[in-house]
């Protein structure tokens, strides 16, 4: 397989809680330039699926492969190409907005201009404010700055539009559209309709919908 042609492959994936099966027999292939929307009612296992895709959880059956290699066995290569944003923002509350961004820069070895990013996420005036004083929507914006810092090909986003206002939503949409246009890949779990029509949709919980 050509190295430049990345591919994420979900193969016969199943996950069960102690007593019941959350999902099973899940198949999907994600190619560059494709966006997958994960849909399903509350508790249908969207977050669990995304945590499996990010390699935090082991599935009970089946596996996820990146360019043909299992993501948990070949984790280093996968991590270089993947970024994950979960429910929690991962913001350190007693660092300022600017310090949080710098910290993320270090973690993702990025050398982008932080002032431009601050302007884009609309927190330019708040850069010296401690993150614990930000609103939920502002924290989410700061969290989404991660998408501008990483050079990852695959984005795994768990309800990225929570708490965002209209401007925040459109910022997120622009980021995703740009990313997909640049041959990126995205797996997004959300209830809301997306501006960009997803290439494929994974329905969880409600098998009739597929």
């Amino acid at each position, binding site marked *: 397989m050509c190295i430049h042609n990345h591919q994420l492959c979900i193969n016969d994936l199943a996950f069960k809680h102690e007593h019941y099966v959350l999902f099973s027999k899940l198949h999907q292939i994600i190619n560059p330039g494709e966006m997958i929307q994960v849909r399903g009612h509350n508790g249908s296992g969207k977050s669990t699926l995304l945590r499996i895709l990010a390699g935090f959880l*082991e599935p009970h059956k089946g596996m996820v492969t990146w360019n043909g290699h299992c993501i948990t066995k070949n984790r280093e290569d996968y*991590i270089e190409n993947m*970024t994950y944003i979960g429910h*929690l923002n*991962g913001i350190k509350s007693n660092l300022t907005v600017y*310090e949080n961004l710098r*910290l993320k820069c270090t*973690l993702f070895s990025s050398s982008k201009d932080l002032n431009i990013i601050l302007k884009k996420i609309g927190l330019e005036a708040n850069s010296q404010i401690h993150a614990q004083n930000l609103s939920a929507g502002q924290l989410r914006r700061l969290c989404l700055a991660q998408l501008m810092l990483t050079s990852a090909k695959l984005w795994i986003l768990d309800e990225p539009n929570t708490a965002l206002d209209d401007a925040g939503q459109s910022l997120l949409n622009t980021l995703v559209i740009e990313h997909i246009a640049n041959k990126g890949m995205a797996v997004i779990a959300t209830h809301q309709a997306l501006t960009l029509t997803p290439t494929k949709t994974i329905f969880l919980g409600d098998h009739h919908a597929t």
Partner: protein
Amino acid sequence: MQLNYINVFFQLTTYEIKIILRSTVAWITPHIFYVIIVCLFPIAIGHDQELLVSMAPGVIWVAALLATIISMGHLFQNDYHEGYLDLLLVSTYPLSLLALTKITSHWICHGLPLILISPLLGLMLNLSVEELYALIFTLLLGTPVLSLIGAIGAALTVAVKGNGLLLPMLIMPFYIPVLIFGTGIMIMTHQNMPVIAYYAMMGALVLLSLGFAPILTGQALKIGASR
């Protein structure tokens, strides 16, 4: 790349230290706890100076151990609840490096102050000058081991709800070697016996845990994050 790792290590450690020092209450309470525990002993035992001197090494070391365990609980707890741990897990740097930055900053913020306070407490317990030096040197070698080994336990129990007492129970047994050599050196110093071999053993403990603990902590964080 190696130079880059060193650079990242220093940058991240600086941020971690900032984070610890800015949550003042969580930072300062273990130190006050340490002082109070040591102060309770002379009050409880009375003015029997011989007994006090012979008990001092044990008292100070056990108090330092308890204080370290209290501060250990915070090591990954906030990171886990704020989702910062997920960020560390998808960072391109090795988890062992990231774990080492957390351990180093913990030692600088919690281990070093313990060492700085201890001579005062030693004076209070009527230790001689040689014993005070021994106290400082043993703590200097011992506290890094406490931070390093404790981090493994803290990482393993990060997702366990109500893990208040689980962490001490898990890591206390592994603190026993440090405790034996730490107090051993002080007792030998009191009896004017050669202690160089004991220091060598403690140095070996530091190197051993420095080699293994960051890697094990990194692995434990992966397990801890899979909730």
